[in-house]
């Protein structure tokens, strides 16, 4: 089967007064139908330029971009327009129509696609509901917060049920909760309608959560590409490692002089409580000893953890466990001193 999006030796050079600048350099890439394809890379790497080539908003200076096997460069204007109608796009800076209210902004692509007014309105209202902005239907973009604008842009891109959805940092202005809802939505439409999604993001969590394929762009070159599993489990290049491994973790304070005993007495369910604590509180605890059992889905046993000296972190971690009905006792040189 043909890939739905295919780059063949695509290069893009911008000619500026300060000389030419090569934003894309010999990109070869294939995106299969139904993929959720993540594109990551440093700021200015060329991600947006690459994605903008997919709907020919950026015309490559070299090479071919093919959608479902057809070279965009060989299409006439009308064919290109028809093709574009099947490609939704969420822009990095939203590009909402300032003189239209939220509802009409979402109706906009439907109008272009020639959908009847009443139907368009209905669809727009549905989408507004989904992105949680029903109460802002009559507001204008200038009256919205950053995240609200982004949600309008998302709704707008989804309005026409495109076959391909291009998301240029579609959740960068959203809080974690809203982000999660949007990602769930994207996953759902991907599975339900086999929509291909190309997603640029700086949040690795987003890639991990929904992408099955990943490409890493660095200084205009495609340096790594493959299944999300491969790239994330075995990043090859320096840049990939930098992006995939959350370096921040290594900057957290290393386990210090403080030890705690964590006791599971059957009151908590058998779940990776320690892993969750580490993930949620971002504490780099050292596991000194453990003996755990799973009896009827309940956790029994205990663990000795070396906590960071930093009080904030330690406190937060302990609080987290206690909230989950786990007993935490302070230990001095493996000796007991008291319960929290």
């Amino acid at each position: 089967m043909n890939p739905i999006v295919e780059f063949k030796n695509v290069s893009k050079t911008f000619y500026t007064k300060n000389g030419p600048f090569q934003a894309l350099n010999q990109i070869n890439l294939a995106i299969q139908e139904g993929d959720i394809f993540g594109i990551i890379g440093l700021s200015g790497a060329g991600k947006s330029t690459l994605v903008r080539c997919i709907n020919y908003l950026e015309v490559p200076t070299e090479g071919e971009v093919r959608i479902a096997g057809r070279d965009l460069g060989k299409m006439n204007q009308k064919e290109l327009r028809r093709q574009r109608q099947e490609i939704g796009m969420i822009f990095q800076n939203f590009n909402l129509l300032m003189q239209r209210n939220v509802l009409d902004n979402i109706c906009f692509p439907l109008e272009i696609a020639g959908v009847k007014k009443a139907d368009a309105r209905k669809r727009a209202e549905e989408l507004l509901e989904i992105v949680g902005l029903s109460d802002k239907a009559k507001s204008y973009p200038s009256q919205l917060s950053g995240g609200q604008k982004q949600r309008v842009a998302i709704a707008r891109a989804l309005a026409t049920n495109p076959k391909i959805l291009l998301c240029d940092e579609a959740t960068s202005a959203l809080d974690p909760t809203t982000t999660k809802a949007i990602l769930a939505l994207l996953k759902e439409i991907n599975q339900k309608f086999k929509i291909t999604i190309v997603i640029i993001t700086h949040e690795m969590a987003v890639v991990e959560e929904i992408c099955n394929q990943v490409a890493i762009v660095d200084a205009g070159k495609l340096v790594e590409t493959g299944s999300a599993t491969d790239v994330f489990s075995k990043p090859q290049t320096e840049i990939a490692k930098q992006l995939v491994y959350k370096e921040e973790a290594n900057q957290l304070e290393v386990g210090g002089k403080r030890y705690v005993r964590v006791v599971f007495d059957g009151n908590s369910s058998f779940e990776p409580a320690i892993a969750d604590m580490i993930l949620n509180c971002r504490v780099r605890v050292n596991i000194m000893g453990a003996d755990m059992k799973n009896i009827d889905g309940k956790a029994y046993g205990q663990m000795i953890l070396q906590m960071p000296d930093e009080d904030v972190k330690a406190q937060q971690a302990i609080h987290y466990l206690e909230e989950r009905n786990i007993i935490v006792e302070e230990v001095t040189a493996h000796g007991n001193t008291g319960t929290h």
Partner: protein
Amino acid sequence: METQELIKMLAEGSVDTLYMTLVSTALAYVIGFPMGIALIVTRKDGLKPMPAVNRILDIFVNILRSIPFLILLIAVTPLTKLIVGKSYGSTATIVPLVIAAAPFIARMIESSLLEVEHGVVEAALSMGASPLKIIVKVLIPEAKTSLIVGCTIALSTILGYSAMAGVVAGGGLGDIAIRYGYHRYQTDIMLITVIVLVLIVQILQEVGMQISKRTDKRVRG
């Protein structure tokens, strides 16, 4: 002149002026609007780059812009006669007024549409919108405020031109002001006439600015 007579004259003048100005502006927009849009669309970085067409249009607009109004007035006499049946009177004045104003309006439109942010045009392009749809649904609505302000400027400019209507017996306040104030030194009549003119311009300006403010959704609050 008797007061009553004066009032009658001013009333007639106002009607003539408004008639010529509004009808001319409307018709000039009918011609100038597409011209302005064509000027934008066929630019090298436009929606449908056609350098040759752009060049020709540009020169055509400049030619019309270059001809002194008085010359235009007589040059188009045959056309005027063809269209309105006679070549004098206020209706006849409308033809040269339209021809003089259309290229001015084209330039104003061009200038307004140039200011539309490229991002929203890109958004429309990405949705597969045709140039026509982009013009109708993006360029014009997004430039709305500027277009309305431009229209206000055009209206008072055309009202200014209409003062020359006297040459072809078009009447109107401008003609009255010139006839009495300029040729016959009746400064009082001239003053009153100019005051009426000022009132008309003030109202047109006010209406235009209000509409532009009301319909502008870009400002916060």
